[in-house]
């Protein structure tokens, strides 16, 4: 195991093979897949003009919400009750949702976010729709530099209502300290941030459990959140975004298949 020293560490470049094929899982536990590009608008981001333009181009996304940037502040003074104030930092952009609720797109002054909610179909469908909407965004915002791209897949594996073992689902699995093996998990949260040698990416891997909304009929949800982000800005020249996303998708797949047990994989087929 290596801990990345951000000051002075040299490792061999990791090989990323975007041609590698991964098993398709018809019942993949993906509850949300997200592509985000953080890139500042270089055109005037006028509320009325941008709203009209986007609405005319997105008739298949009928649910529209305006987004404002708000900042909450709480003042504490001795002998006085805390005083909360909210500051409106101005109009940020619009959020569009498709009629079936499965696609959400946010067009903001500082970037673009596309979410595909469950049921997930496949990478090609996700990428095609995200790129269509991204082009609409760039027509209006005209960004030239991407400060960060994110590709995030949140998986939620439903666990049995009765007893279960973590080791049947994920690897490495959580375990209590040695000598206290009889302890029972009452909560679990694990976060790894993994740098990719020779490439401008970090993989944030979060494993946690989500309590059920109705414990009588629903078990815990085992969350596997894989978030691949870029670590360097780059010019938005032709094809660069697609190239980055293809590499990030490979990393995401490797992280997923490397975290799931064979038993769990069978249940997704």
């Amino acid at each position, binding site marked *: 195991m290596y801990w990345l020293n951000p000051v002075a560490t040299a490792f061999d470049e990791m090989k990323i093979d975007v041609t590698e094929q991964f098993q398709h899982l018809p019942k993949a536990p993906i509850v949300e897949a997200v*592509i985000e590009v953080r890139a500042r608008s270089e055109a005037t981001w006028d509320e009325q003009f941008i709203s009209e333009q986007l609405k005319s181009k997105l008739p298949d996304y009928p649910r529209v919400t305006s987004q404002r940037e708000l900042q909450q502040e709480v003042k504490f003074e001795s002998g006085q009750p805390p005083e909360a104030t909210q500051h409106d930092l101005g109009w940020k952009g619009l959020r569009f949702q498709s009629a079936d609720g499965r696609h959400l797109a946010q067009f903001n002054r500082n970037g673009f976010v596309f979410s595909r909610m469950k049921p997930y179909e496949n990478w090609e469908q996700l990428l095609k729709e995200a790129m269509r909407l991204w082009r609409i965004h760039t027509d209006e915002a005209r960004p030239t530099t991407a400060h960060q791209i994110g590709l995030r897949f*949140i998986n939620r594996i439903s666990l049995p209502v009765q007893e279960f073992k973590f080791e049947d689902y994920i690897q490495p699995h959580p375990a209590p300290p040695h000598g206290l093996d009889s302890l029972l998990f009452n909560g679990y949260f694990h976060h790894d941030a993994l740098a990719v040698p020779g490439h401008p990416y970090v993989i944030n891997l979060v494993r946690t459990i989500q309590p059920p909304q109705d414990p009588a009929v629903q078990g815990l949800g085992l969350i596997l959140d894989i978030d691949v982000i870029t670590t360097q800005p780059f010019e938005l020249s032709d094809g660069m975004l697609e190239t980055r996303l293809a590499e990030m998708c490979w990393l995401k797949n490797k992280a997923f298949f490397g975290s799931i047990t064979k038993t769990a994989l069978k249940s997704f087929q």
Partner: protein
Amino acid sequence: MIIEMTAPTFIWYGGVSTRATGDAAHHIAGAIQERRRHFENSVSFGLPKNDVLNELFEIAEECKASNWDGYGATPVTEDTYRVAYRLLEALPLGMPVPTVGAEPDGHLTLEWYRSPRRTLSVSISPDGDLHYAALLGPSDKDYGTKPFFDEFPKTILDLIRRVMST
């Protein structure tokens, strides 16, 4: 197994997470916040940041009028104060905290100082641009501008580490 640790050892080094919207995403964000607050409540992680936020408030108050330096300085606006506040809030737990200052052009500055030749200065503009300049030794320097998107830019985090590392 080789573990190469650099001080400080408890830091969030995963960069800025991708913004998701569903129930599971909210649950994860809440869990991260909860853990962060847990550490912020400790003296070793939370106190230095609270102190620097108080310092920021005092400087912004002192410099909010025109000519605050007696030489015609531009006031520090509420917008600049808010950007600086959010930037400091976004500083990962366990990172060294800066000292705060104001410039005659109304910008606020954060400075990480180790020696006259190892120092980093970040100048904060009201529109959210972070202008940084670092001295990293006798013949090494770095400077540039980064936009602030509500999370601490990695480039500047790396410079803090380089300036403050032993």
